[in-house]
């Protein structure tokens, strides 16, 4: 985009604007991760300040601190000339900090007007809900923002974009002075985006400060007065929106000291002829669109892309968890397209899901039961051999060094890393040939991470197929032999070994480079 002169955008603040927010030295750590480290940030009235960074750069944590959902470990928040160590959600709202999330929280069965004033309704003198004044106020508010919706329209009839806009109006109805938008355009078409961005400028002109978070650099360049880059929880830089160099911005979003990271030992070529996996035209309408690629045995194939690009959906389809509209899966030329997970497991597939607590583990049951579950699904006959089971499970627990006092311990009591190893143990006992990893090291400690990387490497070196979805850049770049990039449900390109870099992955993921 953008042959357009920057000066033609909304008027750059001329007069001295009120400083709404000043954050100093904000730090928040979670067990094993520093989510935010010494972050400074400020926002003036009438300003649109964009926040950019990779998945996991700390943007979400930042919003949560600001909206009162999380208390920071250190740092101060200066809001409208008062200083706070932390906020409660109630406080944040009372102070006029309103957050609009990707999925706006509206009640579908109520009208626009009712939704806008939900929770702070206009009442008549007798204490009943005052419909006419609610509708009048809703209309006035929307008109002041240049929105022509009928406040009596029921929300379920609105498009996603329209709902998003109602969500923003709702936030503003509570006298918002700071509006925080988290990926508001993720599911919008380009004309809808334009409409939304226009609305943001109008709102800013009303002396509201806007914090705008987006993966889409195009939008950021278009509306941002200032742009702050976060990386690994730290603030890298803050630029004036007009003058920033796009290449520089991308470099700042990535770039990391690679020496800190696990180095994969070069794979030795397997003696056996490697078997190939061919994914052919996998499609699920509105989610994943005509995905085709091939992975050789012994190879680790990474899948990169932004959150919401369809990566998790793709591996779920490959495993037969969701129903596909089209697609075939060929292993060594044989059609093994699974339609249920059981079918998939029988054909040697396995899926290490993104959310191990919800879909990977039976938390309240023992390590033994968890490790055994898929193996038992493959066994014929109604009986279990408990003695054999104890042996098999103990062996794999020892082999993977799962730290547990006993195989009878409930999985809920193990650490994240050990839990993930339990999931892996489960699949290793099915003798799977094709390993689908979805965010294999999310939320686990460094030590376990390394062990899981070593395991993945050894799986590959045994000639197995490893496909790994990851949002962790260093993981993706250092573990993968090739990386397929997904954007908007499609695989937009496949980076060969020499081409893999954080910059390349990021720019293809956000569509900054047209091939």
């Amino acid at each position: 985009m953008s042959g357009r002169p920057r000066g033609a955008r909304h008027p750059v603040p001329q007069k001295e604007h009120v400083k709404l927010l000043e954050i100093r030295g904000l730090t928040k750590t979670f067990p094993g991760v520093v989510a935010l480290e010494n972050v400074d940030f400020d926002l003036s009235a009438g300003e649109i300040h964009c926040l950019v960074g990779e998945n996991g750069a700390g943007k979400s944590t930042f919003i949560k601190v600001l909206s009162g959902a999380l208390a920071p470990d250190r740092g101060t928040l200066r809001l409208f000339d008062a200083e706070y160590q932390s906020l409660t959600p109630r406080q944040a709202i009372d102070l006029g900090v309103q957050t609009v999330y990707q999925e706006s929280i509206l009640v579908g069965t109520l009208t626009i007007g009712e939704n806008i004033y939900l929770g702070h309704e206009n009442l008549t003198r007798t204490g009943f809900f005052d419909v006419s004044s609610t509708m009048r106020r809703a209309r006035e508010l929307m008109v002041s923002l240049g929105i022509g919706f009928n406040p009596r329209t029921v929300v379920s009839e609105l498009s996603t974009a329209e709902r998003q806009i109602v969500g923003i109006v709702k936030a503003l109805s509570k006298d918002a002075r700071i509006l925080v938008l988290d990926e508001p355009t993720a599911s919008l078409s380009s004309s809808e985006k334009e409409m939304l961005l226009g609305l943001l400028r109008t709102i800013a002109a009303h002396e509201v400060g806007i914090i705008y978070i987006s993966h889409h650099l195009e939008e950021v360049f278009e509306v941002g007065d200032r742009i702050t880059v976060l990386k690994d929880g730290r603030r890298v830089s803050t630029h004036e929106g007009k003058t920033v160099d796009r290449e520089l911005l991308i470099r700042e979003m990535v770039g990391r000291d690679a020496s800190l990271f696990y180095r994969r030992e070069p794979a030795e070529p397997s003696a056996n002829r490697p078997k190939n996996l061919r994914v052919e035209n996998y499609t699920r309408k509105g989610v994943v669109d005509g995905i085709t690629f091939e992975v050789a045995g012994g190879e680790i194939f990474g899948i990169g892309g932004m959150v919401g690009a369809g990566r998790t959906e793709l591996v779920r389809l490959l495993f037969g968890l969701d129903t596909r509209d089209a697609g075939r899966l060929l292993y060594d030329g044989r059609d093994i397209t699974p339609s249920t997970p059981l079918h998939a497991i029988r054909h040697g597939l396995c899926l290490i899901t993104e959310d191990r607590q919800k879909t990977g583990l039976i938390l309240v049951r023992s390590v033994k039961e968890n490790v055994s579950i898929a193996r038992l699904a493959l066994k014929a006959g109604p009986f279990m051999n408990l003695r054999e089971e104890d042996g098999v499970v103990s062996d794999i627990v020892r082999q993977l060094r799962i730290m547990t006092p006993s195989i009878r311990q409930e999985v809920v009591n193990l650490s994240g890393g050990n839990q993930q190893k339990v999931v892996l143990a489960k699949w290793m006992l099915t003798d799977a040939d094709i390993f689908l990893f979805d965010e294999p090291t999310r939320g686990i400690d460094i030590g376990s991470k390394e062990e899981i990387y070593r395991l993945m490497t050894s799986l590959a070196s045994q000639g197995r197929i490893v496909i790994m979805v990851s949002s962790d850049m260093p993981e993706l770049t250092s573990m993968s032999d090739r990386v397929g990039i997904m954007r908007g449900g499609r695989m937009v390109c496949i980076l060969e070994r020499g081409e893999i870099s954080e910059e390349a992955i990021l720019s293809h993921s956000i569509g900054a480079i047209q091939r």
Partner: protein
Amino acid sequence: MTRSLALRGLLRNQTFILFLTLVAFIIIVSSLSSHFLTLSNLLNVLQQIAVVGIITVGMTVVILSGGLDISVGTVISLSASVTAVMIGNGASVAVAVIAGFAIAVVSQVVNGVIISLTKCIPIIITLGTMSIYQGFALLVTGGYTHNLQGAFQFLGRSDVLYIPVPVLVLVAVNILVFLLLKYLKFGRRVYVLGANENAAFVSGINIIGNKILVYTVHGVTAGIAAMVLVSRVGSAIAVMGTGYELRSIAAAVIGGVSIMGGEGTILGAFLGVVLLGLISNALNILNVPSSFQNVALGVVIVLAVIISTMGSKRK
């Protein structure tokens, strides 16, 4: 350190708490009445709890798998009515018993099929089928009492080696299902389904088939219970099973079976049944009016749920 941990583990173990409660209860009541702790009274209690105890075994399997069934009372009514009406009309006892038993199994399979295929909430589905089975029971009996006229006494009214047959059946069903849960793949799946259905599905478990199987087991135990009941009472009316659904759910929950599914044991549920039986027996012996007995039962259920929630790992 380890010892205190082990102690805490024991105190978290609801079966153990229940066992302590039972012992304390027996000591207190037997100090109040000399009629309580006698062999004949205890056998009497076991005989009284036999029917609800057998139902509770199936109910426990259902709850463990993440389900619930409030239609079981009317299933018992229907099943017993069919048998009694057939015997009254001159059918052979064997045929009548098989028919009554089969009706119970089929009713529960229907529950299982609807619940597993539609993925609707079990309590609502079985609320509907409860009414259906009650209607059938009324149709079958025509609203009258049907007498067995002395036929089919073995299951409910006879002894083997001085032990009443219902008690033997109760013990046998408990042991059988205990073994089934421990040694069959199906048993493992019952727990897994109840604890995390999504993870179970990802791990290759056939959700629908196993759920239907769960309700089939429940149907088998309900059928056995209905036969014991009709044999013991010697007649059938269309509402004879009413109330068993709540008492069996209560017994399972008191016995430490998590109402969320996935946690609990057959032994615990059995102790729950025994505790309920002992309480009502003790209150009878101590001449407490039956309205107070209801209050006492309610208090025990509420306490059991509070204790089990406090001990839950899923908070």
